[in-house]
């Protein structure tokens, strides 16, 4: 069985972002970019499944401009076997629906038994792509997974999900789509020898035209602004003062 993992290049999670002065978006030039943390967890999970013998190949895919190749190289250095880069060229970041359609088209040619994605990208915070690609492929979905068990014989995945009230367990027939939550695993670091090895692995480039996917833009970004600043607070000296302030000034007690 083959596992397809979708990875996204985003502004590094530790960067304090800056909104552009013209309100057109967030400054991304000369900013450290990395693989989306949830995608790292997805790659790690795919590798672990392959290492357990339940899968034979891990294919990493990314949709975006030329620099996405770096992100794919990271996935290859972690241990993915090969990669596919769908070059979206100058098109602004594609909407999750378009990415889902691209992933569907890739899944139809690659025929993976499992597709793993992060539950959300930390830039757009959409939390949509996995659910959408599952819907388009008519595959079952296991979102916000904190535990995945694969039964190779029965072709079934048991997925423990992080839901509001606790943990929910589902059983999914393969092929299926799984999206990762933070607690699924601890992603490995790429070692230097593996980084070297990754340089000889193949990244296949695919254009949007080849996939014949209709790119929709039914959402228009009107502006991006900074959130309202909070009023500066005060440092108090004692618990008594705090209780007094909460009672008499903030009136929340």
């Amino acid at each position, binding site marked *: 069985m083959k596992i397809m993992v979708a990875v996204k290049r985003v502004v590094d999670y530790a960067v304090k972002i800056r909104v552009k002065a013209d309100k057109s978006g967030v400054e991304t030039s000369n900013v450290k970019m990395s693989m989306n943390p949830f995608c790292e967890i997805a790659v790690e999970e795919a590798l672990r499944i392959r290492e357990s013998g339940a899968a034979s190949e891990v294919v990493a895919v990314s949709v975006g401009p030329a620099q996405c190749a770096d992100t794919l190289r990271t996935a290859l250095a972690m241990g993915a076997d090969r990669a596919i880069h769908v070059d979206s060229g100058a098109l602004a970041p594609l909407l999750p629906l378009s990415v889902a359609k691209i992933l569907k088209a890739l899944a139809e040619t690659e025929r993976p038994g499992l597709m793993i994605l992060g539950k959300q990208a930390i830039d757009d915070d959409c939390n949509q792509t996995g659910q959408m690609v599952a819907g388009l492929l008519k595959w079952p979905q296991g979102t916000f997974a904190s535990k995945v068990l694969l039964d190779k014989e029965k072709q079934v995945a048991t997925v423990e999900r992080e839901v509001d009230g606790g943990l929910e367990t589902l059983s999914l027939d393969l092929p*299926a789509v799984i999206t990762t939550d933070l607690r699924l695993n601890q992603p490995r670091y790429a070692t230097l020898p593996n980084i070297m090895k990754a340089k000889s692995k193949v990244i296949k480039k695919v254009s949007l035209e080849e996939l014949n996917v209709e790119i929709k833009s039914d959402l228009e970004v009107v502006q991006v*602004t900074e959130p309202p600043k909070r009023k500066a607070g005060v440092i108090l000296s004692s*618990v008594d003062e705090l209780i007094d302030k909460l009672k008499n000034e903030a009136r929340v007690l």
Partner: protein
Amino acid sequence: MVAAMMSRALRNRSISSFSALVSRFISTLVLAEHEGGLVKPSSLSAVEAAGVVCKEKSISVLLAGSGPRLQEAASHAASCHPLISQVLVAEADILKHPLAEAWAKLIQLVQQKDGYSYIMAASSSFGKNILPRAAALLDVSPVTDVVEISEPRLFVRPIYAGNALCTVRYTGSDPCMMTIRSTSFPISSISNDSKAGAAPISQVDLSTFSEETLGKSRWLKLASQDSERPDLGNAHVVVTGGRGLKSADNFKLLEKLAEKLGAAVGATRAAVDAGFVPNELQVGQTGKIVAPDLYIAFGVSGAIQHLAGMRDSKVIVAVNKDADAPIFQVADYGLVADLFDVLPEMLEKLPEK
């Protein structure tokens, strides 16, 4: 270029006014969760949000499941909110648990029959799991985590862990689909059992409800933590512990304080990862978003990802030994002190609720 934009703007306007004319009286569908025979408060927040776009004050609520609890929830939905004009009930065994495959199909079915202009749900794990799948089936782009509806198709939503606000316009065809952040749409108009205003309840015809995807997933179990504390997402007061709490045992101190304040207990990712508390208590970009009247953080440094989940709280109090901790930049009141000194003192000195 300008002319093209103008004509597009005009076209959009004429399309939306046209659809308002031809659409049926009821044009907003709210996907609702229910528990113990009641519609969940987060779903009622979605009804509030629907009230912003649906000027005719007519909103349909869709409930699904099976058994007597579903019927109880339906009567609750029918009378709990003046904006609700119709309750749709889908009763089937496959809908007993909120499986995305069945729910998405159900939404597609209801949409094809009734043609709603808007479909909304709360940004709970239920809404986030189901709504995007349904949107893909209907070939529209959904909007996640709406915090403000400026115009019927103009929304504000946080991006980059709440460090930027993005205003988006939906320009596609109906339905316009979104999940809303419950804390941004507080429930204002609860009517208690006003029988006169009870909305009609009708059953969704599920005779055509069959598809090959439905059997591909099975619900096995739900492991939930029983807690007497108020629900984290809706609590008026939240007390949160971070890595500084040092152990699960010490979290009991926090629970005592929560009990005294009638508060819910939250945690940072560090505290969850260290195993002090279960992960459904995590507050932040990838956990729960809260906006209580009072948020008290003990031993929380204030990472970007944590602030994303609580920065809209009305009053923020931080207790931390480290005077340079970023949490003090958002706190209204700060105490630079050892939380193990402050917690017992607060427990002792706080007035009884």
